[in-house]
């Protein structure tokens, strides 16, 4: 037996390196500095630029923009289109989520995958598919000699509705998944009919989730750029106007003003959504009893028809893009060909590989950045951690185009020593990281919170430093989540369009922008082939990571969010 009596016990102290206090401050600064450089500075740049009018510093740009007839038309267009799309999506997605959570519709896993497919593609594939189906040269107009005009308001609304559908579905599905069976049992015992139960029990229990979904969808749609660009025709919205002002006319000041105009409703929507989500969780108590859905033939049949119809609609838009990529000339010559996959246009397959490289880098560095920020805000206590956690979720309220414009304004400035980054892949990667930072940060910190604080305390008491604890305890427990976050970054970077549009140069072309440019030039088949490649890469990556997680026994990690 070794001597445990404690005469010299205090001499057997753990090896001390840097003190934990020093380490925690270093970590905090390491997390805070890049956020200041790559999030706060671009936003400050866009704010500064919007007040930098031809007649000196002041609200001149705002006055000039607000005086134009066109601006108010764009505001009306944007709001009308976003509200219409929001109403359609939220209603349709509620029914779909209800079918999957509260009925016994067959083939639920398949329905779930289908509804999530729009997440695997850039936000212009929906418009692409709609045009192939209903456009001037769409298969319906050509085959049946019709004259359906999909361009404009309704085309944009439908394309955006499909684009936002999976987001709405995920939130509504989560809020319908929690239910207290005791409420339903007592309502039934009191003799309430199904419709009445829905109105008095189900709907009130999901009202916060429902409202939060409305704000999320509204924000996604009003800031979306790809779909109105492709299918809008003469119908312009605020998001496309920023692009036209900046790229078309080099009017950075006016672009910045519209960016701010877009940022304000987005921030409000985000704040309200956060409030609502907080209330949603308070509804479930520890005593709740999970609801078991009983079979009912009529209800299940009705919801099955509905869900399959929606799934078919979402899938058809996607499938038609895939089909179009394999035919000679849609819709005139429908013979099979692989010609469009030769990519003998523009830079060939370069943009695709650029995208893969950028996305991999975004995934690796994004995990490190978001992971570090989450660890610092949760495990370290000092004066900087509270403002840091606010900044960490700020990007969720910033539209991609606005952040992208901020990057151009900040890093194209010759006075900024960081302007060496302008026109490099590195800057696109950094933008990808900070554009998606909020979500990645939230996923990581939720997971970190589930790792009990007592592990940290146990490690400290055993003599482990902050870094030892991180290396030996926290990270080994966190890695499945971090892998999931990596997949999230990879997916978002692959399909990202609006954020990077201002940053790409001919030498740093990315795949999603190529699709836009090919579509713009009327090369619909090549554009479709490009989209298919993007989706294939995303699905391939998801499959690999799912396999890795399965082998490691971490089966409950959500990859698609």
């Amino acid at each position, binding site marked *: 037996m070794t001597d445990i009596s404690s005469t010299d016990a205090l001499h057997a102290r753990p090896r001390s390196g840097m003190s*934990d206090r020093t380490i925690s401050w270093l970590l905090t600064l390491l997390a805070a500095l890049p956020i200041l450089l790559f999030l706060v500075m671009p936003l400050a740049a866009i704010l500064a630029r919007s007040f930098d009018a031809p007649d000196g510093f002041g609200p001149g740009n705002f006055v000039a923009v607000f005086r134009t007839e066109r601006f108010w038309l764009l505001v009306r267009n944007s709001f009308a289109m976003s509200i219409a799309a929001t109403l359609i999506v939220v209603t349709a997605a509620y029914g779909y989520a209800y079918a999957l959570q509260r009925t016994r519709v067959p083939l639920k896993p398949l329905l779930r995958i289908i509804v999530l497919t729009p997440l695997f593609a850039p936000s212009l594939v929906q418009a692409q598919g709609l045009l192939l189906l209903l456009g001037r040269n769409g298969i319906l107009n050509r085959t049946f000699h019709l004259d359906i005009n999909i361009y404009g308001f309704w085309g944009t609304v439908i394309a955006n509705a499909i684009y936002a559908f999976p987001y709405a579905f995920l939130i509504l599905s989560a809020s319908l998944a929690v239910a207290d069976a005791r409420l339903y049992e007592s309502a039934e015992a009191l003799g309430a009919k199904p419709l009445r139960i829905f109105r008095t029990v189900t709907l009130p229990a999901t009202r916060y989730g429902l409202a939060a979904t409305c704000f999320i969808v509204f924000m996604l749609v009003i800031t979306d750029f790809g779909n109105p660009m492709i299918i809008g025709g003469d119908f312009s919205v605020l998001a496309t106007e920023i692009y036209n002002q900046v790229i078309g006319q080099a009017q950075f000041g006016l672009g910045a003003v519209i960016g701010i105009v877009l940022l304000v409703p987005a921030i409000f929507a985000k704040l309200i959504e956060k409030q609502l989500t907080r209330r949603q969780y308070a509804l479930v108590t520890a005593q709740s009893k999970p609801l078991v859905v009983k079979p009912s033939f009529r209800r299940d049949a009705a919801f099955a028809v509905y869900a399959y119809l929606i799934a078919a609609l979402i899938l058809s838009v996607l499938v038609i893009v895939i089909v179009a990529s394999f035919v000679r000339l849609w819709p005139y010559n429908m013979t099979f060909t692989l010609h469009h996959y030769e990519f003998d246009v523009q830079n060939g397959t370069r943009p695709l590989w650029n995208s893969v490289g950028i996305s991999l880098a975004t995934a690796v560095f994004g995990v490190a950045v978001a992971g570090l920020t989450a660890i610092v805000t949760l495990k370290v206590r000092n004066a900087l951690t509270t403002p840091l956690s606010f900044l960490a979720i700020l990007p969720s309220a910033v539209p991609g185009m606005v952040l992208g414009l901020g990057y151009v304004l900040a890093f194209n400035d010759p006075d900024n020593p960081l302007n060496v980054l302008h026109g490099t892949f590195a800057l696109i990667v950094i933008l990808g990281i900070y554009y998606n930072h909020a979500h990645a940060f939230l996923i990581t910190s939720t997971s970190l919170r589930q790792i009990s604080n007592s592990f940290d305390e146990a490690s400290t008491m*055993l003599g482990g430093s902050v870094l030892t604890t991180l290396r030996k305890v926290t990270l080994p427990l966190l890695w499945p989540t971090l892998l999931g976050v990596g997949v999230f970054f990879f997916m978002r970077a692959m399909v990202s369009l609006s954020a990077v549009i201002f940053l790409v140069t001919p030498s740093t072309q990315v795949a999603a922008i190529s699709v836009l440019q090919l579509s713009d030039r009327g090369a619909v088949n090549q554009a479709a082939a490009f989209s298919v490649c993007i989706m294939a890469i995303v699905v391939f990556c998801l499959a690999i990571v799912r396999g890795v997680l399965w082998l490691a026994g971490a089966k409950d990690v959500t990859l698609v969010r």
Partner: protein
Amino acid sequence: MHLSIKNLVKRFGLVTALDNISLDIAHGSLVCFLGPSGCGKTTLLRVIAGLEDTNSGELRLGDTDLRRIPTRERNFGVVFQSYSLFPNMSAARNIAYGLECRGWRKTDIEARIREMLDLVHLADQADKLPAQMSGGQQQRVALARALAPNPSLLLLDEPLSALDAKVREDLRAEIRAVQQRLGITTIMVTHDQEEALAMADLIVVINNGRIEQAGSPRDLYERPATAFVADFIGRMNVLPLDTDSGQACVFGGIPLQVADNKAAPPRTLGVRPEKIALADAGTTGANVIPGIVRAVSYLGNLARIEIVPQSRPDTCLTVELHGAASVPAVRSDVVMSIPAEAFRVLQ
């Protein structure tokens, strides 16, 4: 090395969690902090461990001022209530953790792991992950992990409260045996008075952030200083004395003889239920209180009888009869006889 705490104060915002705590703990003893939940006992343990800061006061181990030593360099072993074994490491790796942090040689670490696993009788569980072990086994590994680096102080934060009753009793004996064998100064936090009585050399009863009383288990049971301690450790009848009689020690008009003499006139007396004897109705003499039986619970080897004194119907006394041949019926008249030595003056 003995642990000395002086005038320790700890506040959380406006709440005072520890209110001027002073305490000396002798080397090699096992001390229990006992009290209801929220009384500050866990906070006191965490302050000693260094997991919480203090607002003021002194904390010394031997000649060392503990507040100047960073938490992780204090070299204290801690066992937490929730088994905080690292879930990604086997039992052996958990035990090795503290040794690796101290830069032990590999061969020494392996030897120490075997030694510690033998100590807690888990030699065959070395490669199991925490999730593959029972709660009792996990807590024994946690104990081994805490003891492996030769800590100068062992801190146990309700180590048994998450376990089943049977496992709890076994582990209670095992912890005490290991502690006595190693002679390590140990502090255990608990809300279970039975646990404290069974294990401790010294019990420190804490209430509302203050020490109510500190003493050996026997001291606390037989000579509780306050009504709180009296009630928290075992059962105690509390007799509020008459305030309008002008004399000392009058209860319901009956003058009482009390052996426990204190300078100030007492206001409250305590008496353990097993110290009260029942006599036939009509018995007279010193310290005899007539009453009516309100309820009787028969508990096998003992009967617990609640009696309302005739002259103080606002109170109720509990009497415990061990192995009594006959038990009085409900609503019958009885007489309670209490020896003068049985009374405790409570503050």
